[in-house]
């Protein structure tokens, strides 16, 4: 089992880096183009959700655990505490998308807010693929 971790400033301008890393890892594991795209999308929307949700978010952490054909990734906002008053409506879209393109998602809750996502993506096509 291999592990990869990435810490980024929780700023919109670095989400492209998060996406490319996700794609590079899935590509290395021999995932299909569709599965690479799914993982990239899920990781990006998890990051988007957290950036949009907290007013005091500074860092985003991505921990990848790689086993054979499976990638587990945790996306976290480790020290974020204060949820924004107005939740952006895109957050619902993020949640929909994450659930649809992955095999399994768990939400790490903190004081009633989602502060992290544990995502499982397998290489053989997601269970919920059309």
């Amino acid at each position, binding site marked *: 089992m291999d592990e990869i971790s990435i810490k980024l400033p929780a700023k*919109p*301008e670095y*989400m*492209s880096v998060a*996406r490319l890393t996700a794609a590079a890892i899935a590509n290395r594991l021999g995932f299909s*183009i*569709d599965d690479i*795209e799914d993982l990239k*999308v899920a990781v*990006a*929307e998890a*990051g*988007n959700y957290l*950036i*949009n949700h907290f007013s005091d978010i500074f860092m985003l952490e991505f921990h990848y655990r790689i086993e054979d054909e499976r990638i587990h990734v945790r996306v976290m906002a480790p020290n974020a505490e204060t949820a924004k008053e107005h939740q*952006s*409506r*895109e*957050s619902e*879209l*993020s949640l*929909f*998308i994450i659930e*649809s*393109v992955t095999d399994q998602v768990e939400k790490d809750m903190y004081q009633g807010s989602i502060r992290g996502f544990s995502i499982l993506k397998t290489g053989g096509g997601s269970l919920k693929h*059309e």
Partner: protein
Amino acid sequence: MNIRQIWSDQNNTWHISLAGEIDIYNAPELKNNLLKLVEQNKGDIQIDCSDLKYIDSTGLGVLISALRRVKDYNGTIMIKNLQPYIYKIFTITGLDKVFTIEVQE
């Protein structure tokens, strides 16, 4: 992200082409652009997405928000030449029902 637009008086339509990646970083720029266009000419919008490689929830939000403005004057937004893997994001979110979409062959 790259945005180009041409106004057609003939069919009262903005022909827009969107290329590259639209995400949480550049979606605000897209929003400003679209709002300026519909202020300038209250017409329909056709968006050509042949070269669109990625759009995230933030980008979708911008399209929804533009649609709301356009509907205020009974206009329409049509999305053309969407790549199948991006169309998937529209179906997941139910937005395939909200926009008129043509997928790329």
